[in-house]
């Protein structure tokens, strides 16, 4: 790519792509100028990821032409796109957790026959600095957690010499500090004549960091916007096609204690303590939010409540100590967990949706007739769980991988809600959901809680938690911290607690 070339970095004309009967992209024209940070926004299933996968060569369009720097191109695979300096960091990073961070970068990058690790690390550190990241290069990527792997995925694109960087929901797993650092550095990256396309649901990021935005709805382009001339409200109404209803705050006031923890420690495999909760009482009807930078013990904490991880200390549900209950018994007793990455932890992507509906419900009697699992009850249940979160599902017979990422999330979240839990646990439950999806989720949780349940939700979306939860706690360095009453709605004070600056 030549910085003096006047042609736009990307020009896509009349792009159409169908999946079965669905028009994922319908004659989309999309232009990105060089040196800009350009956002693509739209609801789940609006065709954003499809368009980007076409640009990246991992999908072939049915119709339409693509120009990169004014040159017409035809990509047969991502390899062709990478050759032209197009890089894409996807929502589900293709990082191999068992390999070290540096090995993940070297993987598939070509280079000399013998790997020169020290030289590679020096170059990688320099690239990482450009993005404001730091890594322990020789440790396995898995140890750096989902956020670390996400960062590594982005870095890998630079490593391969990307000058046009496509980022699909890059910040969902990142802490506010990392997010800010990333965007600050992306700014200088585009100032060097590179280009970034950002696929996101976080309109705040668009307003704060992007220069241009394109809105998709139902597979069609709705509008091209210059960010400085638009507003959050205008963008969100363009996304949904009407003026979005103002978000309603949580309703109802909590009742009696439902879940009580005392001197509670979530343990690692080797018996070391992964998270500590000295004292926590969640009342019936209460929604508790847990804020924190990813990897501070939120995941082990919720996993030990479900029982997939061992714990020490007392865990009482409605007056009964459930500490010794198996996962199956706890699920039967009304505990349910929305996993962090539903695609790998909650669904079987090549199974039909109706079999996915049964996961976690396999022992419930309502699914059996004369002792055998009954198809009709699965169909009914799968339909209800899709409806609960308004997942766009054509047929419950189709495999889960036919749904878009956001609809997979909706479907999996719908399953947890349809279980009618007494204790609803969520690890990033609104991850990958658009604004209306997240709103539906919190309304459903509120209505469950209205019927006497309680919820503990872990999220990186601090604003969402502050708006929707009765109270917000902070998890830092494996400890659950109470936010002082006076600061309970102060996002800056909570932000400081999240990085360990205040008590």
């Amino acid at each position, binding site marked *: 790519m030549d910085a003096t070339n006047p042609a736009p970095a990307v020009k896509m004309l009349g792009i159409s792509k169908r999946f079965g009967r669905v028009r994922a992209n319908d004659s989309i024209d999309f232009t990105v100028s060089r040196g800009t940070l350009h956002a693509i926004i739209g609801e789940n299933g609006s065709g954003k990821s499809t368009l980007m996968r076409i640009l990246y060569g991992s999908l072939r369009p049915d119709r339409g032409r693509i120009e990169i720097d004014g040159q017409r191109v035809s990509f047969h695979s991502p390899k062709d796109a990478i050759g032209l300096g197009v890089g894409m960091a996807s929502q589900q990073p293709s990082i191999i957790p068992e390999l070290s961070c540096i090995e993940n970068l070297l993987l598939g990058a070509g280079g000399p026959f013998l790997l020169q690790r020290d030289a590679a690390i020096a170059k990688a550190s320099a690239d990482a600095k450009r993005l404001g990241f730091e890594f322990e290069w020789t440790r396995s990527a898995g140890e750096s957690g989902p956020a670390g792997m996400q960062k590594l995925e982005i870095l890998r694109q630079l490593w391969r010499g990307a000058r046009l960087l496509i980022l699909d929901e890059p910040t969902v797993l990142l802490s506010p500090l990392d997010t800010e650092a990333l965007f600050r550095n992306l700014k200088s990256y585009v100032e060097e004549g590179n280009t970034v396309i950002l696929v996101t649901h976080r309109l705040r990021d668009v307003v704060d960091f992007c220069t241009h935005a394109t809105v998709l709805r139902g597979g069609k382009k709705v509008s091209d916007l210059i960010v400085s001339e638009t507003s959050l409200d205008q963008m969100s109404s363009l996304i949904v096609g009407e003026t979005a209803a103002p978000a309603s705050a949580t309703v109802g006031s909590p009742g009696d204690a439902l879940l009580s923890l005392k001197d509670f420690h979530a343990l690692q495999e080797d018996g070391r303590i992964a998270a500590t909760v000295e004292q926590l009482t969640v009342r019936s009807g209460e929604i508790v939010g847990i804020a924190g930078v990813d990897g501070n013990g939120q995941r082990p904490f919720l996993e030990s409540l479900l029982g997939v991880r061992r714990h020490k200390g007392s865990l009482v549900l409605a007056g009964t100590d459930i500490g010794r209950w198996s*996962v*199956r018994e706890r*699920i039967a007793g009304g505990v349910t967990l929305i996993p962090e990455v539903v695609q790998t*932890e*909650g669904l*079987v992507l090549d199974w039909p949706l109706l079999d996915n509906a049964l996961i976690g419900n396999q022992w419930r009697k309502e699914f059996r007739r004369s002792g055998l*699992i009954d198809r009709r009850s699965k169909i009914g249940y799968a339909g209800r769980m899709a409806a609960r979160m308004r997942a766009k599902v054509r047929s419950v017979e189709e495999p889960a991988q036919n749904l878009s990422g956001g609809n997979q999330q909706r479907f999996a979240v719908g399953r947890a809600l349809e279980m009618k839990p007494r204790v609803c646990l969520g690890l990033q439950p609104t991850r990958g959901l658009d604004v209306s999806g997240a709103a539906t989720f919190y309304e459903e949780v509120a209505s469950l809680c209205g019927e006497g349940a309680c919820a503990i939700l872990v999220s990186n979306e601090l604003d969402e938690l502050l708006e929707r939860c009765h109270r917000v706690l902070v998890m830092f360095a494996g400890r659950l911290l109470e936010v002082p009453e006076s600061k309970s709605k102060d996002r800056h004070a909570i932000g400081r607690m999240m990085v360990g600056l205040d008590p």
Partner: protein
Amino acid sequence: MIRVTLAIAAALGVLAALLALAGVPLRDVAVSFVEGTTGWIPDRGEFVGWQPVSEVLRRATPLLLTGLAVQIALQAGSFNIGAEGQLRVGGLVAAWACLSLGLTGPLGIVVATILGAAAGLLWAAPAAWIRAFRGGHEVISTIMLNYVAVFATEFVVSGPMQERPGGEPTTAVIPEAASLSAITFGGGFVLYPALLVGIGLAILARLWLNRTPPGFEHRLVGANPSAAAYAGVKTKWVSLRALLLSGAVAGVAGALHLLGQERRYSIGFSPGYGFDSLGVALLAGGHPLGVLPAALLFAAIEQGAVRAQVAIGLPKEISFVIQGLLLLLVAYVRWRRRSTL
């Protein structure tokens, strides 16, 4: 299904090209395969009887049962390469039950089969335990246990259970009253009851896997162990159970092969059914009932090759070439389907 059929057609195409290159008359090969497996002689338009069909069914029986065994483990994400060893100890224990315990009659057959199943299960147990609780790969441990089974059973029939000291390495023949005799119908059609047991077990396995909670958990562990753990499945125990069940079915295969066909355990008890069964299970894909057509196809290929050797002198080892081509092409179409999604 269409893709698998295409793969079979493509395998036959490649085979025809290879044979033509070697100067083998293709038409004669085709005719002897048809004759050898159906009993119908195309040249004369004449049906010579049910004997060839019965022979295909006889060959298919141990393949069906061992293929089912491998398939059951596969459904839970484990690869049981040890069916050969489990089959052998199942056969030997059934022989021992008939000869030493003096079991006879229908009840005796049932007990001998159950003992064979128990032997297969126990033979799989070390590998199952290592896989579930020590993280050792079942492929390695089950392969190793095959060697142990082959030589341990050889030792037993060369010493403790040998028919005549100093004679052939084999047990005595089990009494007529203890064996599961074939039933001969009019027209020379011979039915091996073990085949019906195999079909019944395949139907049961399908029902269990698709329609019961433990069967669902079994498949879930195979498809996504993390999702299974979150769904309250004790994944380690399910892995353990999967290999034990698989071993038990392979043990049944051995016991029935002994009671119904071999009637004594010699070192030539199995020409490698346990290994062929890996191909049968792979060809069947994810369907428990798919092992039935797959076993029939493998048996027909072997039977056709035997006929071709007699008729036109084509070495019967051509069956390995055909089976190998078939598996490669089926693996290719399945892999392609996955990668395009």
